[in-house]
């Protein structure tokens, strides 16, 4: 029996169907916890705790009203925004400059620095958290946002430097040379020539740092003591203590937390694949 070998991009209707079916199932699994939490957040408390499966059950915004006006949630939210934005700005500035230097210049100590960045990825939060806690206590920074920004930068910067270095490597160094010929110093070249070209890479890194800060909990629970200073990760768990958890507050809070993350995500995602590839394959 002879059969014409099929090219890669032609498919029989059957395999096309299988392809779409698989992807639809995968997409459903990816979305349904988010959708279910969203649906649950619109139900009154007794409906959330019912064993019957209803998509909608007396939809109401009461849970949101309570979360926003009767709990410390707005404080936590604001704290998280401040911490995440500061971490993002400081982290990006540091890792972009360091990544550029590592990508362009051959200077003594470069290899050591690269190793340092890779190795810090391995340090478990478990070994650093107690000493960092002691340092913060000595500096009087416990229970402040600054302690969290500093701690998160130390987590995010090595990875971002590594990724941005990979991204800068893909920008032709001839551009730097041309800028140098035009009389721009290394800092100006970096600022006016390379940074604008590196926007996609910067977007991914910004996304990464933002999410690191937005979603971190271990440091947040350990460093922050007073209710008003908590960030979302540490605060949200107060809605669901082991006894008498309030899932109505939790689901509404969870939706409000996912919103900004998905906004940042939406803006970063079109650069996501390109940026990660450039950083990732470099290794």
């Amino acid at each position, binding site marked *: 029996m002879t059969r014409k070998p099929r090219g*890669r991009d032609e498919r029989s209707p059957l395999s*096309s169907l299988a*392809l779409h079916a698989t992807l639809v199932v*995968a*997409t459903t699994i*990816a*979305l349904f*916890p*988010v959708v279910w939490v969203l649906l649950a957040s619109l139900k009154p408390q007794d409906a959330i*705790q019912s*064993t*019957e*499966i209803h998509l909608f059950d007396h939809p109401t915004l009461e849970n949101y009203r309570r979360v926003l006006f009767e709990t410390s949630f707005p404080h936590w939210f604001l704290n998280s925004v401040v911490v995440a934005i500061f971490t993002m700005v400081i982290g990006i500035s*540091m890792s972009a400059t*360091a990544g550029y*230097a590592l990508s*362009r*210049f051959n200077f003594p100590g470069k290899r050591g*620095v690269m190793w340092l960045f890779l190795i*810090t990825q*391995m*340090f*478990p*939060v*478990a*070994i*650093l958290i*107690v*000493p*960092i806690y*002691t*340092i913060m206590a000595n500096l009087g920074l416990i229970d402040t946002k600054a302690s969290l920004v500093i701690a998160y*930068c*130390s987590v995010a*910067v090595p990875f971002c430097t590594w990724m941005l270095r990979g991204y800068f490597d893909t920008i032709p160094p001839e551009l730097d040379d041309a800028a140098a010929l035009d009389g721009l110093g*290394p800092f100006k070249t*970096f600022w006016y020539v390379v940074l604008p070209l590196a926007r996609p890479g910067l977007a991914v890194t910004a996304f990464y740092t933002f999410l690191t800060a937005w*979603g971190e*909990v*271990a440091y947040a629970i350990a460093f922050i003591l007073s209710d008003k200073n908590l960030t*979302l*990760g540490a605060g949200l*768990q107060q809605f669901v203590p082991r006894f008498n958890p309030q*899932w109505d507050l*939790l*689901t509404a809070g*969870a939706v409000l*937390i*996912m919103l900004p*993350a*998905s906004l940042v*995500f939406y803006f970063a*995602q079109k650069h*996501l*694949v390109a940026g*990660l*590839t450039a950083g*990732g*394959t470099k*290794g």
Partner: protein
Amino acid sequence: MSLSTAAGSGVTPGPARRGRLRRTFDKHWYAWAMVAPTIFVLGALVLYPLVRGILQSFTNLTETNQRAEVCSKTLGGAESCTPNPDRWHWVGLHNYTDLLTGERGHFWLLLENTIVWTLACVLLHYLIGLGLAVLLNRNFRGRSLYRVLLIVPWAVPAFVSAFAWKFLFNPKFGLINSVLVHLGLDPVEWFNHRWTAMFAAVVTNVWLGVPFMMVAILGGLQSIPAELYEAAEMDGTSPWQRFRHVTVPGLRPVSSTVILLGTIWTFNMFPIIYFVTGGQPAGETEILVTGSYRAAFEGLRNYSLAATYGVVILALLVVYAAAYRRVLKSKGEVW
């Protein structure tokens, strides 16, 4: 003194060396200036705490014995301080022997959990990520829509996913048990057994981690030259053969990086276990990182025991990374 004479003559070693230093500095100062802030912060916040943490693991430091002085207020309001008689002191390897023999904590249980947890998560991350990436790497309508939707779990913060899944796995009214009941099956008390609780945590983490793997592998797939596939097709190979002999080798650089990173990240993954199982039932699903955290910040804060856990975790990861690198090297990988 001009630079050229000092460097050129080379007779007097002192100035010549200074000249060379000077020239190195002139040539590289901006590179160093760009790296310096990062190095400084990492030094202060990663290396210094690391050294401190290692030292702490050889002491008996806890919440109660950390003060150098004990102060008490007198009636007049003045403070009088005396040296703390029960101050922490060096205990050598005491913490390590206690930990490894199970005298304090449940190290071997935690290690077993950590290994099961890491293996299951990384394996599923990689296989599902690879499968989806291969599907998404084809040309078909709606591909970019699928891609955006499939990355959604990545945009959800880990602790939110943890609560979302804990909600779904809720034994009383969770969606999963409701579905089981509808299908005529018995509901499962997810958090009353070690392995069902671990299963819930693994499901959560797999859901959370697949998008990263998928995106990274997709990037790797797109960097494989299309000519390789065309050549393979000309030779009349089957799709499986093309996958086996073109895709898999072409992905190796990306795979080796993401698997190593994925293992390290999963090994240290704190929020999922902490929030989903919370160690239920009775600490049987605790992993090393959460165990260390609880030692440090719950009950009587035992900083030295937590540090000991940390050192052991770090040692395990370093050994793993070294072995991993060795295996790659023996296969001729340049990494």
